[in-house]
């Protein structure tokens, strides 16, 4: 079935990238339709979330989703739920942890900074920090960031003040701060997109925990669900189609698409026509849709004649250290983490690896996740039961944690493609994740495990233990790459404006465009880049250059 309307813009996906594009383009007068495969939740629905449903089984935000995963192309990929990206209006911004950093200037030119690293596919971004800086400013104000600008001496320069003060420190935060100061490091409040006071028409944080992997019932946590999609709808120019899954980008005349084939909420096939199409379905969803869209011109999938779509998948590398303290840590309460240490961020190959990352107080320790880490506390992976398990659980109120978000290196063979053996309930091939860590990632993580243990012990922790998080991949939610932006159409998929090299009316505005991953949580950069692209898009449209 074909609907009669031809929209100015169809945005596929409603997370950080899609939300901003929908808001800015509809505010500029364009008629925008947003296709979102997930449900449109009212915030009160988030009162009924729980750890088993959201974190362990992931059936709240991903009720019907499956994908497959393997380490290398020689392995058999197993079906399951691996990537932690909400399929709902607002996308990953609904359940994100909200840590919001600007990438450092060097993180946009890693190849120039660190040179060739064997086994990696490092490149520079086609844009630099200065080009993104005004859009970081805009994103921080819009999201209602809390924090203390200028408190991190290793951060990108030129920060404006945050609109909200930092959140209060819990006892575990103070232990980390004390330890870092004792080691002559520079602890500072984590910049977070969670209201520390009423701001932007959204409430103040209730300190209830359940932030990362959960939706916020009072919308103190910023999201496209709470901010950008409502603003887009308020223009009167935007239509939101939830529970509608795009399944094919349909080619038109010349180098243009003519529309999107999708399944509506009843599972009926529809064709939607649009002059411009913005693909913002995340690194996996975006790749899946491109590869599903084949033609005589693009037999290997749309934009994929150079075999670059899906490659260079990145998901950050993590290190985790927990600690036990005498006083109650109160780690389960308040926003996700509070204090950070960034002294080890600058790349220094003398450490045995390149690149770096940021250390932050770990997100709230929900009970099941904490229990599943008992083996780390007991320092064994067998006999993790019996009285020692009970003893470990009884210490739950006194446990805190540190986590490191580290820059992982892009590797060409780490990729998303379509699984030839497994299909979903609609008969579509499942996305297949192939990902094996570069040795640099492992060395980086081990280094940071040592530093985090030192900080905790210097702060007075009675015991510290590491849990190996290097196996956490797309489950991090930090999924980047697969549709690199670059100046060379032979080695990239998008140009510097996130516009496809090969299709003139297709834009990809999400984390897919990242050439490298940076050593910080990616969402603020996705937001800032979306504002940048939206400005360019509106400028072209106003000049009549988007037909």
């Amino acid at each position, binding site marked *: 079935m074909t609907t009669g309307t031809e929209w100015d813009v169809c945005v596929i996906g409603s997370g950080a990238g899609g939300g901003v594009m929908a808001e800015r383009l509809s505010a500029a007068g364009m008629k925008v339709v947003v296709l979102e495969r997930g449900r449109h939740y009212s915030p009160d629905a988030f*009162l009924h979330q729980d750890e088993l449903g959201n974190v362990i089984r992931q059936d709240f935000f991903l009720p019907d989703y499956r994908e497959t995963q393997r380490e290398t192309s020689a392995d058999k990929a197993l079906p*399951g*739920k691996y990537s932690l990206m909400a399929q709902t209006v607002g996308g990953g911004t609904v359940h994100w942890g909200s840590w919001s950093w600007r990438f450092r200037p060097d993180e946009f030119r890693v190849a120039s900074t660190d040179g060739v690293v064997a086994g990696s596919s490092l490149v520079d971004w086609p844009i630099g920090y200065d080009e993104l800086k005004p859009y970081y400013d805009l994103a921080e104000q819009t999201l209602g960031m809390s924090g203390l600008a200028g408190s991190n001496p290793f951060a990108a320069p030129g920060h404006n003040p945050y609109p909200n003060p930092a959140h209060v420190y819990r006892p575990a935060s103070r232990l980390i701060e004390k330890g870092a100061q004792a080691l002559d490091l520079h602890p500072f409040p984590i910049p977070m997109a969670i209201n520390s006071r009423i701001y932007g028409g959204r409430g103040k944080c209730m300190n209830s925990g359940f932030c990362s992997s959960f939706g916020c019932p009072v919308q103190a946590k910023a999201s496209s669900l709470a901010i950008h999609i409502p603003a887009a709808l308020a223009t009167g120019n935007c239509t939101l189609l939830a529970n509608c899954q795009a399944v094919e980008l349909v080619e038109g005349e010349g180098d243009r698409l003519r529309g999107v084939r999708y399944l509506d909420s009843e599972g009926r096939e529809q064709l939607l026509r649009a002059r411009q199409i913005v693909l913002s379905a995340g690194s996996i969803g975006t790749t899946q849709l491109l590869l599903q869209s084949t033609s005589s011109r693009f037999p290997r999938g749309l934009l994929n004649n150079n075999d670059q779509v899906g490659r260079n998948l990145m998901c950050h590398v993590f290190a985790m250290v927990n600690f036990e303290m005498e006083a109650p840590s109160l780690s389960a309460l308040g926003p996700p983490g509070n204090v950070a240490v960034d002294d080890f961020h600058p790349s220094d190959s003398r450490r045995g690896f390149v690149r770096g990352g940021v250390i932050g107080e770990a997100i709230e320790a929900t009970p099941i996740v904490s229990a599943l880490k008992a083996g780390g506390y007991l320092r064994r992976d067998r006999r993790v039961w019996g*009285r020692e398990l009970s003893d470990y659980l009884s210490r739950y109120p006194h446990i805190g944690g540190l986590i490191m978000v580290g820059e992982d290196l892009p590797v060409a063979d780490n990729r998303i493609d379509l699984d030839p053996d497994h299909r979903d309930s609609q008969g579509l091939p499942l996305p297949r994740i192939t990902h094996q860590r570069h040795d640099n990632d492992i060395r980086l993580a081990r280094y940071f495990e040592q530093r985090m243990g030192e900080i905790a012990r210097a702060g007075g922790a009675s015991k510290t233990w590491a849990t190996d998080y290097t196996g956490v991949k797309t489950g991090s939610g930090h999924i980047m790459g697969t549709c690199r932006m670059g100046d060379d159409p032979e080695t990239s998929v998008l140009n510097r404006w996130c516009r496809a090299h090969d299709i003139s009316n297709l834009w990809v505005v999400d984390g897919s465009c990242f050439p490298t991953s940076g050593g910080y949580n990616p969402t603020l950069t996705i937001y800032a880049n979306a504002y940048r692209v939206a400005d360019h898009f509106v400028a072209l449209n106003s000049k009549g250059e988007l037909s």
Partner: protein
Amino acid sequence: MIGRRDFLGLSAANLAAAMGANPLALATAQQTPLPTVLKPDEWTALEALCGILLPPVNGVSTRDAGVANFIDKFLLHEGADQLPIYRRGLHLGNAYALTIGTPSWSALGEGEQVRWVEQLEDGALSGMAGPEQQVLFQSLWFNTLLGFLAAPSHGGNVNHAGWRAISFPGHLHMQGGITDDEVAGKPAE
């Protein structure tokens, strides 16, 4: 059925996903706390097994928390493909008890039960394939923790027993949250 190598190779988060989504089990758990799939002798053995895997935490037992009920509902619906392996394992335990003159596995002494579970974890019991024993052990361990600590709506953690045992306050947004001073660890005025 998922193979042992595959099962053990999964992360904890994906383990549950591989074991099935929960809505049917959740709905049944909300309907009845009574056994729906396990027979009385199986239920009794399972309760005892869970108690060995996770002895009381601050005085709260897995029986207090209704862990067996959580597992019963799981085995009725999304975990139905695992019911045969649970059944074989529980019967193996009861049969073992009989061979040493004890009427059931739950009547064994604690030391004997611990040694049996160690062999189950190692896949070293006779009468059941070793890899199958290890799959059963992993599932029992995982589901015992879930039944103790998951939200009560899933059938375990009865009256927040598991959460009270570890001093976890639960879903505070249902109660209006807490103040900044409380998060900071300052005594309430």
